[in-house]
């Protein structure tokens, strides 16, 4: 069966999300040869310049829909536009990034198209005519492989798992510019607000000491601060549950809804390794994980694994480092 795939590109403040370039790589992974087609879809206000840039960088044809209204994302209209395009073009696959936007409209779009929707996709396998998708379940402790045989499939990729598309392109794709005329009046978009500044400490740090639920008590955070102090150019980050508890600030959160970081060293202390966290740190230079659970998912992403209780290991490490530094 020939595949006709639409990759939905997401932009924010005039730039494409890296995760959208990753979704394009995913689409390339399961499209083969000359028969399969990939088109890119972009929804934005006055999208022409972005669409041209996209056609140049991807070499693919781009359908750009001018949605007006500051280019703000609107779930109802997104679903309507994509449903219309599906009817017109006969797409068999939609591939989109599992950002908070992709996860917002992907499942609803599947209902409209009577399609199968798979979220959190980390890998695609082609087995003859059948596509299989790998995704994490049970907090990353188990991988699930799902084979899909639906006529239409919506693939939502887990950010950070595919490499961003970077093939060299010989000639730019075509651009098809359109106007959006759908109403979508049950939801009104009132704007966007920034609730916390990007954490420059995390972005600039060469070493991130990151902490998860394994810290057990708020008082133990001092250990993590002490560990960070062993290094220069270091910062403390953490997983979402600690931010929800109020033990860390949300700007220290590493993961899908927090920061995506790539320090030289990522030291994960007491972090289980849920997919949401992994997406934000898996491309770090060197990863050391300390966790009392030998089966913790974080170990699958680590260069060095230390099976210990972080609350006792950190003091031991600090003392050892003191001693060895002077040797």
């Amino acid at each position, binding site marked *: 069966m020939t595949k006709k795939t639409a990759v939905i590109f997401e932009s924010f403040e005039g730039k494409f999300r890296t995760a959208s370039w990753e979704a394009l790589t995913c689409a390339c992974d399961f499209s083969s040869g000359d028969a399969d087609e990939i088109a890119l879809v972009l929804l934005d206000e006055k999208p022409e310049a972005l669409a041209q840039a996209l056609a140049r960088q991807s070499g693919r044809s781009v359908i750009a829909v001018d949605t007006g209204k500051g280019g*703000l*994302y609107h*779930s109802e209209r997104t679903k309507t536009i994509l449903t219309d395009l599906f009817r017109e073009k006969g797409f068999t696959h939609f591939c989109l990034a599992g950002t*908070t936007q992709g*996860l*917002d*409209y*992907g*499942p*609803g779009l599947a*209902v409209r198209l009577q399609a199968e*929707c798979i979220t*959190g996709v980390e890998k695609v396998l082609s087995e003859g005519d059948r596509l299989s998708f790998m995704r994490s379940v*049970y907090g*990353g*402790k*188990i*991988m*699930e*492989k*799902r*084979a*899909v*045989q*639906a006529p239409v499939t919506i693939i939502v990729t887990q950010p950070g798992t595919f490499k961003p598309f970077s093939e060299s392109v010989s000639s730019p794709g075509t651009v098809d510019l359109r106007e959006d005329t759908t109403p979508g009046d049950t*939801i*009104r*978009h*009132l*704007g*966007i607000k920034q*609730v*916390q500044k990007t954490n420059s400490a995390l972005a600039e740090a060469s070493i991130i000491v990151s902490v998860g639920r394994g810290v057990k008590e708020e008082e133990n955070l001092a250990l993590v601060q002490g560990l960070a102090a*062993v*290094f220069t150019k270091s910062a403390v980050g953490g997983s*979402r*549950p600690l931010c*929800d508890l109020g033990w860390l600030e*949300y700007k220290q959160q590493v993961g899908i*809804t927090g*920061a995506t970081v790539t320090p030289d*060293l990522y030291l994960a202390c007491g972090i289980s390794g849920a*997919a949401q966290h992994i997406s934000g740190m898996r491309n770090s230079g060197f990863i050391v994980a300390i966790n009392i*659970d*030998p089966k913790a998912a974080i*170990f*699958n*992403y*680590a*260069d*060095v*694994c*230390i099976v210990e209780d972080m609350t006792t*290991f950190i003091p*031991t*490490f600090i003392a*050892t*480092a003191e001693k*060895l*530094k002077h040797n």
Partner: protein
Amino acid sequence: MKILVCVKQVPEFDPEAEIKINESRQGIVFDHLTAFRMNRFDEYAVEEALLIKKQFPDITIDALTVGPESAAAVVRRAMGMGADHGIHILTGEDRLFPADQVARWIADITQTREYDLILTGVMSEDQMQGQVGPMLAEYLGIPGATSVIAESTRPDQGTVAAEREIEGGYRELLELNLPALLTVQSGINTPRYPSLSNVMRAKRARLETVEAGTLTSQPATTITDLHYPEKTRAAEVLPGTQEEKAAQLFRILQEKAIIP
């Protein structure tokens, strides 16, 4: 005004225990020792409903779950927190259903009940799909928003203002017409513990149990195969005592020129 909160029962594994894959490799092994509890994200949804009810006391809150007999416990838990009524869509012992099927089961029985607001967690901790909420909104033909981190319900205006948490420290500000569905993100509130008096009431209360219909369509995802994740890096496990591990780590970081 009526609020529906959808809650899921998930297995609670001892963090240090291995999760075992069953022989068919399509599910995991549950035994008499497996504990189950309410999906954490759904606890936030229940709490948010209770906070709305505090503002508008004439609201009633229904808690609903889909699952086998034992799943009734999470409906009672929601009632222990303060929900007024419980609905249990009773399935067979199997716990894995396509998100689309779960959304349709819920849509089938809620269609005629005219809920003004439906709340649920942003995803389940076990399957981590985040699909039932937005699919349910679509089946009911009502507006929905996911990953909500703040909301303000205005029954008199027939709207709900919601803040969706998006990437990089930003929030999207939306206003939705009621009826609407919101999936809530963790951190939106601090879920309360059930109170003793509510727990006693929940224990006595009769849940409305509805048999789940047979699967109304063959799931298109036909084959599932579970396995343990592969290592993506060296994953060198340091041997020895804690002191030995600490010394090895120090040397490795020195070799990598991370420690001078």
